[in-house]
């Protein structure tokens, strides 16, 4: 379902230092942002358990975007590299589960880079919009119970 009027719903996990700061800067600049991304603040991208991403998709998100500090700029030394490692493993898992890995993105934005933040969000929403709504075969819709074949 690749319709231009499809409004995907995404979750954006933001580290509290650079990414949240970049989101604030984007706001201060009053640059329009698609309203499709639900923002969740975490201390560091290193805190993001891949379960959070899977849970977001399971709850109804069509995509997830994780934003952290630039490589080398992590406020906790190296934890954003850990996030990168987990992200790549997660993409493999999603592929195996039949989920297009393009639904999950990892980006970096410095605390002063409001423009970068806006672009990351806009690109992620556009990418997921072109992929259409996420359909998880394994997860029964709310209210129905799964039946073993």
């Amino acid at each position, binding site marked *: 379902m690749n319709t231009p009027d499809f409004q995907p719903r995404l979750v954006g996990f933001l580290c509290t230092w650079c990414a949240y*700061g970049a989101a*604030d800067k984007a*706001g201060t600049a009053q640059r329009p942002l698609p*309203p499709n991304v639900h923002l969740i603040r975490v201390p*560091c991208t290193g805190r993001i*358990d891949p379960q959070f991403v899977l*849970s977001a998709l399971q709850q109804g998100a069509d995509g997830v975007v994780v934003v952290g500090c630039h490589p080398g700029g992590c406020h906790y030394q190296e934890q954003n590299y850990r996030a990168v490692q987990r992200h790549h493993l997660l993409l493999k898992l999603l592929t195996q589960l039949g989920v297009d890995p393009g639904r999950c993105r990892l980006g970096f934005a410095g605390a002063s880079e409001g423009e970068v933040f806006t672009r990351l969000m806009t690109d992620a929403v556009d990418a997921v919009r072109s992929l259409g709504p996420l359909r998880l075969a394994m997860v029964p819709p709310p209210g129905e119970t799964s039946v073993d074949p």
Partner: protein
Amino acid sequence: MKVGVFLCTCGTQVSQKVDPAALGPRLRPLPGVAFVEEVAFACGTDGKAAMHAMLTRERPDAVVVAACSVREHEETFRGVLSGAGLNPWMLQLVNVREHIAWVTPDAAQAVDKAERQVRAAIARVQQQAPLARTTLPVNPGVLVVGGGPAGLAAALKLAEAGRTVTLVETRSILGGAPLTYDEVAPSMECGSCLLEPLLARVFHGELAPRLTVHTLAEVTALKGSFGHFTATVRRRPRFVDTATCLGCMACVEPCPSTLPNAFELGLSTRKAMDFEHFGGLPSVPVLEPAGCLRTLGDECTACRDACPVPGCVDLDARPTELEVPVGAVVVATGAGQPPREALTPFGLGALPVVWTQAELERRLSSSGPTSGRVLMPSGGPPESVVLLHGAGAPDEATLAVTASTLGARAARLQRQLRAQHPSLAVHHVFVHRAASDAATFQLQEQARAEHRGEWRQVPDLARVRVAPAPHGAHVDTGEGRPLDAGLVVLLTPPLAPPSLRSLAQALGLPLDAAGWPRPAHPVLERQRTPVRGLVVAGACAQASSLADAFAAGTAAAGAVLADLVEGRHVVLEPEVAMVDAARCSGCKACFGSCPYHALSQAPRGRVAVVNPSLCVGCGACVATCPSAALTQQHFTDAQVLAELAEAFR
């Protein structure tokens, strides 16, 4: 749980897009919501007073404020909560201004988005638990490891500020690298002269009562954390009591045993009972067990018999260990050198006319093995010298980074050599040319102007070959004609000291792949490390000139004084990781995820424990734990998942 919700209008900044009249009715029916209240400027005096009144009247268990950035006003609203008798961690602040009102052109979409974000916050806050910062008193005493320029500078500055300082030095004398230099760049002062006033202050000045010096000593372990460390200091015996020794040398002469003098790099010999060097303090001899006849089973007591002070020489002394409680540690152990294997390609060891820079320095020293005369094996002075800048550098980066330091040293050595032998031709072979300050540049320019010899820039040192020749050596630099050399000197770059690896392990100091300590921030915090209370200074932290090392020692003292203040308490944030011992399998996966060394094995049993004074609350260990045994307070899985679930309800 009763949740109170405040919707800040920020004048009209929020309400022009996110109208409380539209949003409020959608939130009031939600489970747990006790009230939804509009506030004009929540951060202003009136706004805070209005919130205070509402909170004291309604007494909710938790509060959601929809206003602006966490970075701007989380602390403000936490203050309002605690002022009203609520726990400040029972707050969720939703940034509806920057993240929604200012960036969502369509008002209806803005209200929809705000509704989801505030609903998620209402769900999350009900999963939150009351938390509090805790405090611990600090020990204002400081341990300084290393008695060279950086360590001395740090120790003296700390003592000047009234601090009790324990200074640990592995040699028998303080002073470090300048002890080995007859002159230091760029001032061309003698190394010992530079040190003398500093060492006098450490041992005899008004600061001396606050400074405890342990020579022949090493730090073998560090327990605890910032504000309350306990260091284990292991001291090798000197066999001479520094408190009562007169420095009269009566014990040296009768000693029947000689051994190679390590301080003079084996270029001369010393007695087993002898002074390590005369340029440093304390001016007290040290018995070298490796050369003492007693080590070989003999009953020699010649030194003790000759000593005029009863009990001063104790031939039965044993290594001792002591525990030193301190609040912070300054690591200043000095630079390392390339291993000898890295220098053999340049003929070191095979050709008697190839010397290391250190060997030349000792020969140039008036207190050195040749009383300052540079003489070749033939007995005469060299006719020409080739200085090979950066020999033994492990990589291109080292050559580039140390070019200024090596250039200054080369200029100084040229000056010292030509002061002795004015007709001497001095050739320089180097890859990079650099000067980190004006004085260094001037020194190098002067050397270039007055040189007799060639300054030859080469693309790399790998192609340099040193071959024997009748008059000494041929230095083939890979291009141009080979340089004739009566003497070849290998100017070795200062490197990350290999000895730092074991010390770093003992201290829990994080190192990078090249073996350098990692700074807390590469620009803002060069002296602090990721481990609070561990501070680095001087050539053990980065390639430094002597001036850099003294400055870094002062900066390190400043970093310690700013953080470790007498009477102050360490404030511990509550947003730290916690271990559920019942779930922990003891796999230690979390240890590697923490660059702050906050995780360790419980003293009894196999489970992990978190040191809350080291944990910085990044949460990476929580996501690493395969058993869900770790949680992070205020960022628990349950809290994040509650937020997610409500957003998609």
